[in-house]
């Protein structure tokens, strides 16, 4: 087993465990912290895929900005702990679990069949693709239009969230 595989397995283990912990914590702050751990481990996995730019963005945007926002809101609302999960292990949850597992199984089966024999190695130019320089160039040439539109989306999001969140003026 190569070093790369080892790194991948460790990181994916961390990612999965932190994800499971995230959805099972009663306290939303704890959930948020586990989610951050999950994001960080994912960013390192991106590095193993030679996607440096995405890895850095992942840390900056997700683990940084978005999660700060989450934690901030949780603190702001001063939420109580949710009731223990096991207390409410009602039929609905069991059914949900069942179906989720079914979907997982079905997709896993399909995946196993379709890609197990292919894509064994990364492409030659994968290092080239992941570079900030390359991505930046593409963004400002080929993808300039969607890139500019994102600014519009962000503006709308900002305006929208301000309008929604502000208190009504009496």
């Amino acid at each position, binding site marked *: 087993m*190569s070093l790369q*595989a080892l790194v991948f397995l460790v990181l994916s283990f961390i*990612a*999965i465990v932190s*994800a499971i912990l*995230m*959805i099972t914590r009663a306290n*939303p702050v704890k*959930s948020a912290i586990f*989610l951050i751990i*999950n994001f960080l481990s*994912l960013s390192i996995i*991106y590095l193993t*895929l030679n*996607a440096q730019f*995405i890895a850095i*963005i*992942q840390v900056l*945007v*997700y683990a940084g*900005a*978005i999660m700060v*926002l*989450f934690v901030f809101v949780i603190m702001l*609302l001063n*939420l109580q702990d*949710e009731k223990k999960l096991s207390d409410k292990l009602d039929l609905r949850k069991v059914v*949900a*679990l069942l179906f*989720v*597992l079914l*979907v*997982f199984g079905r997709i896993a089966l399909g*995946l*196993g069949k379709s*890609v*197990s024999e292919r*894509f*064994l*190695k*990364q*492409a*030659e*130019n*994968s290092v080239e*693709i*992941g570079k900030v320089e*390359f*991505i930046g160039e*593409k963004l400002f040439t080929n993808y300039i239009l969607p890139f500019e539109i*994102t600014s519009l*989306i*962000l503006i*709308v*999001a900002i305006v*929208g*969230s*301000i309008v*929604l*969140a502000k208190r009504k003026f009496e």
Partner: protein
Amino acid sequence: MIPLSWYLFLSLTLFTIGVLGVLIRRNAIVIFMCIELMLNSVNLALVGFSSYIGNELGQMLVFFVMVVAAAEVAVGLAIVIAIFRNRLTVNIDEINLLKW
């Protein structure tokens, strides 16, 4: 070298956990986080494909997904705040406005 399928299985696992979270949690904020998790798992698959195929498209898409995710979180959390202000709860069982 590890094959792409490993990444895809990781992505699938994370996605499934996210879905499960959405289905079983009641706290709207946690549900949001689960959705973020699902988005990330998809990102992972995209980046994986991108580097195994050797095409920059996947990473471009991830970039845009992140932008949209950021916008969505901003608006979503604003909605949560607005609802909380009115109802003093973020428990979505109690926010059943869609009921007939």
